[in-house]
């Protein structure tokens, strides 16, 4: 996994609440291997028209936001299906940070497994950020994971919370599976105890 430390990049606002993972990547693309290139499929049906041409009104197609690597979203971004390809599509398109008041729980987990930093901020903060980005298209934000701050524009840096485990994994790009295997003795002990206490589970 690609580590995440600090990033200064153009940020794009997405104002609609409840953007589901079907909209981030339609189900008909899920059969494709990630290696076949899923970045171009990001937001496919709202980003492109029926002939494959770009829809000029879609935020990531607008010239000022084409290089966006940060998204600032509204409530419940990434709700719905557990498809991890939604995160792969964002990451492969170049998005490294999503900032919003809330995220779909499964999407949120999937982000951190793929080096995508998902940041929860109060609703008003997200809405102020989106307004600032809309007022100054192409504005950059600096997201510093170590310091847990978002800076940009005229306002003071915003401090955000991230749990220590997720922060560590993102900063180091460590393989979570390898980390878990360090707990192998505890897993084996648990299984031995479970065989005695709940033998019907095998």
């Amino acid at each position: 996994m690609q580590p995440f430390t600090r990033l200064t990049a153009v940020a794009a606002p997405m104002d609609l609440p409840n953007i589901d993972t079907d909209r981030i990547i339609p189900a008909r693309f899920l059969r494709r291997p990630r290696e076949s290139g899923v970045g171009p499929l990001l937001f496919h049906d709202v980003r492109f028209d029926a002939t494959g041409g770009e829809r000029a009104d879609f935020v990531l197609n607008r010239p000022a936001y084409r290089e966006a690597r940060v998204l600032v979203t509204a409530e419940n971004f990434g709700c719905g299906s557990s498809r991890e390809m939604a995160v792969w599509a964002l990451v492969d398109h170049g998005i490294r940070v999503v900032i919003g008041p809330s995220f779909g729980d499964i999407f949120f987990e999937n982000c951190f497994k793929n080096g995508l930093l998902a940041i929860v901020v109060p609703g008003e903060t997200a809405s102020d950020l989106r307004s600032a980005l809309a007022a100054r298209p192409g504005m950059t934000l600096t997201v510093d994971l170590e310091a847990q701050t978002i800076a940009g524009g005229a306002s003071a840096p915003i401090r955000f919370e991230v749990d220590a485990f997720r922060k560590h994994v993102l900063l180091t790009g460590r393989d979570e599976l390898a980390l878990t295997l360090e707990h192998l003795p505890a897993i084996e002990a648990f299984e031995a105890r479970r065989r005695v206490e709940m033998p019907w589970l095998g």
Partner: protein
Amino acid sequence: MSRTMFEKIWSRHVVAEGPGGQSLLYVDRHLLHEGATHAFARLEKQGRGVRRPEACVATADHYVPTGPGAEPIADPEVRRMVDDLERHTGRLGVTFFGRGEPRQGIVHVIGPEQGVTQPGIVLVCGDSHTATHGAFGALAFGIGSTEVEHVLATQCLWQRKPRVMRITVTGARPPGVMAKDVILAIVARIGAGGGVGHALEYAGPTIRAMSMEERMTVCNMSIEAGARAGMVAPDETTWAYLEGRPFAPRGEAWDRALAHWRTLPSDPDAVFDREVTLDAAEVAPTVTWGTSPQDALPITARVPDPAAVGDPARRASMERALAYMGLTAGAPLAGTPVSRVFIGSCTNSRLEDLRAAAAIARGRRATVPAWVVPGSGLVKRAAEAEGLHRVFADAGFEWREPGCSMCVGINGDTAAAGERVASTSNRNFEGRQGQGARTHLMSPPMAAAAAITGRLTDVRTLG
């Protein structure tokens, strides 16, 4: 100290505590479908195995064709997904129910049907509707592909403990009001994001009076309210359903399991992080009008008017939804013409669902194309033993093979752009049932009624 059912199950499965409030949680049962092939392929590449193949059960549901008969899979990419799952499960010694095998079906239908789903367990699956299994008093939740890989390799998962919300449902359901109407009303009440960061416990006399299949319908849609897990305390209804199922414990093991299961329900004075109540007597047959499951209203209502909404973000969202759905503010929902009907999905494809739909179809005639897709080969067989397939056939409904079908459209079962679908599935998202397709969620009898009249219809008016 008083504890919730969630807390009892959670604390019993913590293998180790990690930093930042993360716990390494043990997984008792892992259900798999074609989507798991991405995870299997990564494991194979790394030369890693499966820690406990006997804890896994796999089936093909998302990608299988559901056309009548055992048609070959035409699309090579779709065929590869199904074939790869068979190859990986075979290679790793994981139980697999494939096409043509009667136990094959939607993963959330076959888990309970086979007795794999049991009270008190932690069960995961790479699918957001895994909360379905919480109907048995299990902690069951959907996970992503990397998490599937992690569980396969370690039988564990790093999780942050969610908060717990209790949703107490009281009051008798009026005639025509199904479990689906109750959960749509709950999702509308707390909102599509209302359950984010929570596990839900559905409680109260109305839930207690529900059959296992009805409880599954309720728990199934927890994710549509933002919650990864939804659960119902196990009771006599649960034991009666489970006993004798192939994967359920037997004899002395059953007695021992039962003694444990009886300790699971939340203690009477357990404290929940949030409490919500709903009076089922006030719920009517419900349909959705928008592109989020929270956009649900009684069939007697009118299409809501965005202009009447103060919050500009909400207004913009409603305007977009109405434009996508091709609906006019203020128009009555009942009477809206539909293009086709889909009865199926992990929400509503079990035997009771098919019986309820057949009761409306019996002796009548569908006026638009209508599909009935049973949840599993065994559901199909049981329905046929009761003659339901003939009821549907006589009414002009198409009786199909088991699978996810038009709920997710991933196998090619989709509606065309602009088509309006009366559907018993769980999501009315833009493009969910096909690019540009318009979905109205409802119960099986309501969907059957729509098939008969060709319009969104209050099933109570059909008599």
